């Protein structure tokens, strides 16, 4: 939805509301309207004060380096200041009908001010030079609305893509298209499996070396039952870690680990103290 059309509809709606609220509240008026085209130094290349409903007497040229500024006050017909709900300067291309609007901001206690920044000019006006009609669009829910034709300006720029010029400065933004992260580059399964085998290979070398050093696993059957219970409980802890990795949850796993702690400690204490007593 283009803002200027919507702003005008809002102005009309505001006017209707104003009428319904009672004639005593009055319509909103634009007072002390000044249209300026400023130099880079801040001096006014063009300046004209307007009294509603008068329009600009000439057509000023507006370039990237000479921005357009419109300042005004908003008040009722009785002269009371009005806090506007909407204030914008709308520019409509005379040939293409493309519209762009720039919101007017009010400084503290000062007048409303709408100015075209260099970025806005570059984005919206520069690519579509030509003659634009300038309209001051004001709206107040309480006091009604106003669409004040200020006149025309000539925008000097380089013809560019028409698509951009049609976008309203305050219109809806383009749709956001999510872009998910690219998947990580992974090696092939064969490489991963090969390395898994390579990592497991030192285990075979270790066991063979232990056998050569005289470590005899068959002697385990001569171990006292307490030592086997202790080793069994340690193996249970390892199995618990594997089960947790596979799909267990942390807190239940910690609970099981805590439950195994005391038996493991007692079994270990018993087994190792018997080894010390036997002098092994």
């Amino acid at each position, binding site marked *: 939805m283009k803002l200027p059309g919507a702003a005008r509809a809002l102005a009309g709606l505001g006017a209707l509301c104003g009428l319904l609220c009672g004639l005593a509240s009055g319509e909103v008026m634009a007072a002390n309207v000044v249209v300026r085209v400023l130099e880079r130094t801040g001096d006014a290349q063009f300046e004209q004060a307007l009294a509603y409903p008068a329009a600009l007497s000439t057509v000023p040229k507006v370039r990237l380096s000479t921005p357009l500024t419109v300042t005004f006050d908003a008040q009722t017909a009785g002269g009371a200041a009005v806090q506007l709900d909407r204030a914008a300067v709308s520019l409509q291309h005379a040939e293409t009908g493309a519209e762009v609007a720039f919101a007017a901001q009010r400084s503290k206690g000062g007048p409303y001010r709408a100015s075209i920044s260099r970025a806005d000019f570059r984005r919206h006006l520069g690519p579509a030079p030509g003659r634009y009609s300038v309209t001051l669009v004001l709206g107040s829910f309480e006091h009604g609305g106003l669409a004040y034709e200020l006149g025309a300006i000539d925008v000097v720029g380089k013809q560019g893509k028409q698509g951009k010029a049609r976008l309203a400065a305050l219109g809806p933004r383009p749709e956001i298209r999510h872009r998910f992260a690219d998947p990580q580059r*992974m*090696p092939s399964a064969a490489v991963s499996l090969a390395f898994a085998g390579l990592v497991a290979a030192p285990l075979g070398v270790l066991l063979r070396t*232990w056998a050569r*050093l005289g*470590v005899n696993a068959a002697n385990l059957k001569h171990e006292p039952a307490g030592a086997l219970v202790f080793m069994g409980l340690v193996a249970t*802890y390892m199995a618990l*870690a594997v089960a*947790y990795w596979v799909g267990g949850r942390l807190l239940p796993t910690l609970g099981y680990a805590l439950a195994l702690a005391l038996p493991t400690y007692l079994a270990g204490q018993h087994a190792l103290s018997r080894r010390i007593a036997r002098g092994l």
Partner: protein
Amino acid sequence: MAAATHILAGLARDYAAVTPQRLKVIDTYMVFCVAVGLIQLAYCVLAGSFPYNAFLAGFGSAVACFVFAASLRMKTNPKNAGQFAGPPEAAFAEFVFCHIALHFVVSHFLG
């Protein structure tokens, strides 16, 4: 070069003759931990670190096992009996406890 070979050969000979069997078992386990860590590091360098948490878990496990084994070796070495109070069985109990805790942390970090 010949001198270095001679020194290394002498070192190996003295090591085999002097070192108790228990310490040799621990030493081979430490070499095993280093080898496993190096292979994992080589995979990380060649194939990339993704998933990084898995690499850290595996490599950290190898390093931690090496450290625990080094501690066990220091405490069970008869030459260090004066420095460390307590029997070798107590050191082994600490070794087991540290490994249990380590493997829980590693399994948590593996993801």
